[in-house]
């Protein structure tokens, strides 16, 4: 290995590569892919922003940054993303904590998991539409139930509500494995030393969750910054936000540059939050899974009244979700919602004939994206936390770019970059798959990173000191430990492949189309029935697939290990 005497300077930088060829190869492949699917499209897009007729120009940027309405939209976006991040993380934590520490019966946990998944596995604007039906001037709740008149549904409150409801499951999914991984013996020890439950929560449990909380806030903040569909339907004209403005600028004003500028502006807060989170989280130390075995019965970590309050809160949120989706199911089964409530299966007939191509295309694309995205997330997250190689921080930042960028801009960037040679991919399924992998894989990366920060490095060091190569150590030691993160990543990529729209609305083509695009189209064409039927279908497909894999996962359960009961939460 060290047959060549390492010289000073450049060779020192290459020492890592010689020591571990598997690592070198993996890092190089990842960089190649990141370069092609993250850096290259963004570079092409930036070129489009700053190159005007062959020379450098900032005129386009200046015009938009001095427009008072765009500036207002920028602050609105930040406010909304912050509130969604806070509210969503709070709700997600309450759910995760209740499930992990509430001592609930298994079937309740399964039921909660099911309901919580609903917003995640349907296109975001489906809750938005159900909100309009429920809270508008003639809303089922505001008008029919409460008799209120002149209520406005459009604005920040309902956008916040809808986005928080849509994205809090991400926080739940990110926090649940972390809470599950915190050895409850530590809490037990603190209590037996005389600390109250509240004190244990405040000084033991909560601090241990901080990487997870920060991680979840970051994910939700980015998700909100990227979401154009919910504000498109709910924000109205009084509360413009940047992603929607960018989308309208591009699709409506044919102004690719203007839209690109607006979106590039969004990158600034996304990166700022990311840097903040890294700095903050890295100041803390969180090892609770060590080589020294522990595995006693969990203790009663919450007081009965707290438990009931938590369960009550979860129940209330769950009821709201179930109500919104029951409305959707109903709309798919009647002739015309609000006008003709005669029962029909006709809308399902329509989607399985005219819409069949969209269904097939979506399934093929999701089938590709899921394993690739899951693998990518765990691999990159693992390398970044555990391996020393040049540019690893840069790799982490670059890997987050497509997630943090509004989907609109990723879609347009891909369209510009991959429409012409040298890399002509537009119109293929590959470009959509790549978009999903690099846009939603980061969920797996973040979860892996947060989880690995809790696992003591000594486990891996032991393996390596016994002579195992880094590939073997990863496969035999680390992978089993981070399986929950792998499956969380896998699940999120599959779900998003079935439900995302903001980037891929620009990537669908004459050969490949997607269910979500059909849904949005149907909604604007007054075909609410088929739109609702498509949404119900998406939900059923995702439930079936996730359920099937969950079942298959039972064989992962081994004596003494944490049972992998649910694909997403486990």
């Amino acid at each position, binding site marked *: 290995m060290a047959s060549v005497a390492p010289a000073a300077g450049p060779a020192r930088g290459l020492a890592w590569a010689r020591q571990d060829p598997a690592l070198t190869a993996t890092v190089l492949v990842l960089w190649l892919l990141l370069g092609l699917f993250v850096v290259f499209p963004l570079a092409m897009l930036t070129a489009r922003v700053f190159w005007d007729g062959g020379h450098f120009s900032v005129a386009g940027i200046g015009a938009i940054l001095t427009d008072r309405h765009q500036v207002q939209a920028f602050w609105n976006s930040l406010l909304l993303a912050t509130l969604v991040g806070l509210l969503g993380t709070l709700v997600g934590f309450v759910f995760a904590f209740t499930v992990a520490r509430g001592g609930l019966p298994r079937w309740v946990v399964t039921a909660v998991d099911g309901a919580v998944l609903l917003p995640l596995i349907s296109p975001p604007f489906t809750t938005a539409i159900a909100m309009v039906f429920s809270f508008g001037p003639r809303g089922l709740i505001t008008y029919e139930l409460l008799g209120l008149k002149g209520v406005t549904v459009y604005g920040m409150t309902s956008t916040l509500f809808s986005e928080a409801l849509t994205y809090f499951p991400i926080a739940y999914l990110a926090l649940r494995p972390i809470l599950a991984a915190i050895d409850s013996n530590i809490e037990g020890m603190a209590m037996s030393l005389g600390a109250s439950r509240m004190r244990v929560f405040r000084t033991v449990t909560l601090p241990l969750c901080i990487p997870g909380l920060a991680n979840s806030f970051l994910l939700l903040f980015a998700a909100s910054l990227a979401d154009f569909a919910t504000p498109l339907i709910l924000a109205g004209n009084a509360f413009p936000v940047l992603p929607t403005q960018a989308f309208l600028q591009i699709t409506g004003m044919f102004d690719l540059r203007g839209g690109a500028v607006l979106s590039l502006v969004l990158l600034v807060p996304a990166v700022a939050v990311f840097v903040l989170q890294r700095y903050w989280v890295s100041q803390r130390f969180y090892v609770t899974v060590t080589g020294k075995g522990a595995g006693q019965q969990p203790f009663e970590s919450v007081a009965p009244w707290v438990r009931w309050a938590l369960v009550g809160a979860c129940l209330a949120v769950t009821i709201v979700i179930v109500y919104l989706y029951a409305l959707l199911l109903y709309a798919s089964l009647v002739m015309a919602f609000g006008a003709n409530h005669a029962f029909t299966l006709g809308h399902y007939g329509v989607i399985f004939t005219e819409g069949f191509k969209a269904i097939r295309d979506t399934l093929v694309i999701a089938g590709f994206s899921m394993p690739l995205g899951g693998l990518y997330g765990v691999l990159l997250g693992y390398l970044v936390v555990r391996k020393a190689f040049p540019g690893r921080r840069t790799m982490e930042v670059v890997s987050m770019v497509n997630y943090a960028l509004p989907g609109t801009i990723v879609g347009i960037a891909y369209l510009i970059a991959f429409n012409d040679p040298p890399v002509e991919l537009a119109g293929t399924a590959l470009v959509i798959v790549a978009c999903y992998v690099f846009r939603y894989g980061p969920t797996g990366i973040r979860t892996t990173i947060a989880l690995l920060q809790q696992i003591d490095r000594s486990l891996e060091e032991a393996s390596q000191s016994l002579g195992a190569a880094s590939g073997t150590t990863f496969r035999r030691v680390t992978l089993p430990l981070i399986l929950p993160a792998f499956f969380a990543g896998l699940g999120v990529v599959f779900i998003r492949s079935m439900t995302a729209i903001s980037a891929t609305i620009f990537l669908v083509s*004459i050969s490949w189309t997607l269910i979500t695009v059909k849904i949005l189209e149907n909604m604007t064409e007054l075909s*609410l029935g088929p739109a609702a039927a498509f949404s119900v279908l998406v939900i059923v497909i995702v439930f079936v697939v996730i359920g099937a894999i969950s079942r298959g996962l039972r064989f992962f359960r081994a004596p003494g290990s944490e049972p992998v009961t649910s694909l997403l939460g486990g």
Partner: protein
Amino acid sequence: MKIAQRLAGKASRLLALVAAPLACLAAALPAAAADTVNVYSIWPENWARPMFQEFEKATGIKVNFVRFSSGEALARVIAEKNNPRVDVLFGGPVETHAAGIKEGIFEPYKPPSFAKLPARFKHPEGQWVAIADDPLVFMTNAKFLKENNLQPPASWNDLLHPAYKNMLQMADARTSGTAVTRIFSVLEVNGRDEAKAFEYMKKLRPNIQLYTKSGGGGTLPVGLGQAGGGIFFIVDALDTKAKGYDVVISFPKEGIGTAAEAIALIKGAKNPELGRKLIDWASSPAMQNTLAKHKINFLPAHPDVAVEPGLAAVIKDAKIFPIDADYAGANRKRMVERWIAEVLNP
């Protein structure tokens, strides 16, 4: 460590299970057939599909299409300029096509019907031809009118009534051709006096609950009573009514504009011959005679095709005027920008 080994072994087996079907799928990617014409349709799918089925029946040529709203379709054709993926841009208000001419994305073509079409239904050089005509209408919710003791609006000024405060939905001029036609209608009824026209639009602003992304976006809220009314293309309004929503269609006595729906051949199309055949067919009575059969309430552009009696009855006493293509083309961008600055974001 035994556990870890077992888990890892099973993990790799699972990955193999996932990878195998993926490889099969990769081998089965579909390829485009030779007798197929590729189309971006701006007409919604439920109207475009029956038309394309009729076309296939008549000619044996299959149509492979995706639907986009006018702005998106145009942005796409422009983005794909160096490597066009479709042969024809089908439907959409003619301002969309007018904007495309400047980008040089169309191949001029004059179909056999060209000579017969009135001047406003064709571009002089054949950059586009019209396949239908689509007037705007006022559409209001019947229950809303009754509750507020209102008559269906019969004048542009009726929409300024305080009962409509925060209750109107209509399209956003940034994305929708419907909105652009609406703005030019207001300009026409005010004798193209821009100051007066914008004065009216600003006075109407407090009554607007939402400017929607697509032209038909407000029809469902009006149908459901979430909004009291709005201004829509007749084809969307009659469709709302046909679905069973209790809405009233009316026209302003000052008059209201109508937009031609156009078709155009894409420059550099891979199947130009098939594209021309589709244009021949769509601009002729062959297609436009089937509109009524499929309950698609566009007015035919070809003078030999009679307006369906039900549709004719709706527009019988209405004062409808065409939007002047030259005037609209020359001022479109400026008017939309002014609308954004003065009406949308006052």
